[in-house]
């Protein structure tokens, strides 16, 4: 629950891009974020600082140095591959035109791949563009898991599309999307991704894109073939996803409940402190101690505010986005099922025709093609699944560690407040004639 009203972004034109150092040239400094290596821009509303390997450092709340290390180490662990494509989404800006108002994000790419003409690109993209990219990826790589995008539609009255919180949450999700694509051994070489990252203006051909999106996806998801025997491993995946979705739903509900309880606790706490202040007015000797306790409680109260806000902004959105990710994975599983079903149907039909025409000894080519497709799909899916599981593990490790960190920070703030009030409580006035404590 945010204590302040959501802030809108300053709307402006494009800002000049600052010089960035080449990622490969600054590898030694990866673990210690020294100022000259960090990429600090002058844009308004940006909270993130970017490390050379392309990951943003979340400094919106004062994180302990250990959590900083966590984030750095996590990305270094990724598969042990040498990475040659780094992408970042940042710097959201509001654009106002006569027709519409919308947000664009800066997409920064650094790469050594030969598929790219330049080692660096900076472009501005809006949500529509990300959506276009995703559709293109789905169409051109139907057997692969495409990471999800954050929700497209928002209820106009309910959510402020231009509030700082909303935009930041969306930015993080878009950044995650692009990073997942860039990390994928197949998707990252997709030509559409290349265009997205490098082209000045995206030639999107919206009309056709919409039609094709409808066509391909529908064909694979709602295929009319019936599946005979699904391999056990894919069934297991489906079961896992169902149960996992359930658990995530439970965790979401618990997190929401905690936020609610904390808010109600906050309400009482806000009434509690002031009573001490009122009492202090009636007292002489005790005035200092009572006021000290009151201000201590006010500090704890604002620390709690921050905790609740952090959980709302950092924890819940990421959790919910994972549900979308699971949905994407389920769709891929379904597609695979349909491809297998199509193959089985064709195989059956061919066998039937074979019986009639005894001369045919070879398997017809289209059935063979189908079989290849099935094999290919299964292989892609398996490798995507492994990758997905790995990402999931890291993502949740990061998410839950973040939750622990927020709580630790909250308690550390409260501890500091109470510890600082102890000497005030023990300190007696000089006029006191009773025996004094040391």
């Amino acid at each position, binding site marked *: 629950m945010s204590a302040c009203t959501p802030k809108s972004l300053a709307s402006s034109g494009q800002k000049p891009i600052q010089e960035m150092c080449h990622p490969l040239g600054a590898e030694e400094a990866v673990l210690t974020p020294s100022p000259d290596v960090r990429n600090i821009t002058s844009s308004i509303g940006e909270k993130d600082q970017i490390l050379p390997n392309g990951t943003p450092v979340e400094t919106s709340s004062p994180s302990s140095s250990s959590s900083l290390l966590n984030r750095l180490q996590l990305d270094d662990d990724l598969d042990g591959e040498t990475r040659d494509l780094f992408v970042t989404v940042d710097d959201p800006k509001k654009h106002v035109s006569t027709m519409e108002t919308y947000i664009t994000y800066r997409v920064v790419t650094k790469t050594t791949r030969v598929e790219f003409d330049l080692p660096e690109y900076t472009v501005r993209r809006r949500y529509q563009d990300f959506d276009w990219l995703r559709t293109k990826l789905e169409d051109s790589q139907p057997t692969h898991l495409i990471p999800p995008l954050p929700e497209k539609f928002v209820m106009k009255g309910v959510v402020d599309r231009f509030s700082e919180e909303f935009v930041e949450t969306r930015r993080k999700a878009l950044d995650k999307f692009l990073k997942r694509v860039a990390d994928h051994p197949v998707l990252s070489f997709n030509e559409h991704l290349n265009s997205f990252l490098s082209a000045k203006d995206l030639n999107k051909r919206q009309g056709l894109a919409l039609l094709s999106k409808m066509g391909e996806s529908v064909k694979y998801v709602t295929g009319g073939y019936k599946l005979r025997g699904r391999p056990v491993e894919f069934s297991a995946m489906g079961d896992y996803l169902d149960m996992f979705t359930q658990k995530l739903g439970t965790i979401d509900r618990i997190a929401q409940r*905690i936020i609610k309880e904390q808010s109600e606790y906050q309400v009482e706490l806000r009434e509690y402190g002031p009573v001490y202040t009122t009492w202090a007015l009636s007292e002489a000797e005790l005035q200092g101690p009572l006021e000290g*306790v009151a201000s201590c409680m006010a500090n704890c109260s604002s620390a709690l505010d921050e905790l609740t806000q952090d959980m709302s902004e950092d924890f819940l959105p990421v959790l919910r986005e994972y549900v979308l990710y699971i949905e994407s994975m389920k769709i891929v599983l379904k597609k695979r099922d349909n491809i297998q079903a199509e193959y089985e149907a064709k195989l059956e039909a061919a066998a039937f025709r074979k019986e009639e025409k005894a001369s045919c000894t070879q398997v017809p080519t289209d059935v063979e093609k189908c079989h290849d497709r099935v094999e290919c799909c299964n292989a892609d899916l398996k490798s995507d699944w492994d990758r997905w599981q790995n990402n999931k593990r890291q993502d949740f490790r990061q998410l839950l560690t973040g939750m*622990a960190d927020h*709580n630790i920070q909250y*308690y550390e703030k409260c501890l500091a407040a109470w510890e600082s009030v102890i000497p005030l409580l023990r300190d007696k006035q000089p006029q006191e004639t009773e025996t004094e404590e040391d």
Partner: protein
Amino acid sequence: MLSVSCLSALLLHTLERRMADAGNKESAPIGGDEFTNTELENNKNNTMVEEGSTLLRRMEISVAEAEKRTGKNTVNMQEIFTVYLIETRPIDAITEGHNPAPDSLWRRYSEFEILRNYLLVTYPFIVVPPLPEKRAEFVWHKLSADNMDPDFVERRRVGLENFLLRVASHSVLSNDKILYHFLTEEHRWKEVVYETGFQAKADSRIKALSATFRVKNPDKRFTEMKHYSDELQSLTSQLLRVRARVADRLYGVYKVHGNYGRVFSEWSALEKEMGDGLQSAGHHMDAYAASVDDMLEEEEHYADQLKEYLFYAEALRAVCRKHELTQYELETASSDLISKKQQREELATGMVRTFSFKGMTNKLFGQETPEQREAKLSLLEEQIVQGEETVTEKTVECEEYVKGAWVDMQRFKEQKDRDLREALIGYAVMQISMCKKGIQVWTNAKECFHKM
């Protein structure tokens, strides 16, 4: 009206107080050494040995245990009640190294009440320490409001001990014989205390209330003190109410985290590599949720300290009211005397100064005979002499009361400042401990998440 023994007790009290201030100091139990230990100890006992005290120096007193008994009550019905074991030991024996077994007797809460009422009536100028509450109030939902609840009984035991220690260390109250009997004579005590006739001496409520409204010239310091006692009462009760609500909400926050324990456990069954980390983290979440019970139980001690001063506020107000009563009685006696003197003057000179019904009827129905007048005059003279004695007595009474009460109210003020400061420190220490536990649990959980 104060008895002679009380007046002398008053003087003794004032004297001892002056002696104490003059420098006959002893080192108080709160030594200067280790903050946590001694301050916490004092916080637990919640008492300071007064300079010049007698009984507590001679005798070690404690309320050691509580037990349930059954018996017949006043309307001859079976009831269950709790009795408390009072143990006493002479200090000389202990310091000489003998370590004798303590003398002991059992008392019910109602007997403590009788003792306190006796003290209130007998020493109206003293801010008499209060008893722990009769019924559990300001309860937050988890605690039961049941008088039989073991936690409530335990806190009451501590409260009763605290009461006895405060009374036995008070320079005036500790000398009382009835108190001594209470601690040492199990069976005859009630008869003895009723024999003092203290119940008859109690001021009627109506008398006290009308004095408050009608008194003309009360000591301003007492009026201020009474005003302060009202504020103290209102503030502490407000604080207790809000604190209970805060405790309720905090309980909710902690307990909901227990759900994480369950879901992490279920989730870990689905996972291969993540399973162990999740499972262990879940256990920490369970521990976190469970930790709140002890913490809030400990916080009840702070609530008890506030409650003591909530009730103390009432005792303070009673002392101020008694002053108003004695002052009012003095004013009444003085104005009676003045009116009697005026009547004498009128009779002697035949001049009617003030309107009187008698005077009117005299005018209407004829004057009295000289013999009647003589009789009236001599009666008036007698009454005037008596009245003058009364006024003198009342003046002394009032002055002595003011002196004695003021001294004790100062003592109370210092005690209150000390005790509440200790209470606040104790509260801060509890909060610190709670924060440290929170950090510990979440750090443990974080390590588990790390291993996922």
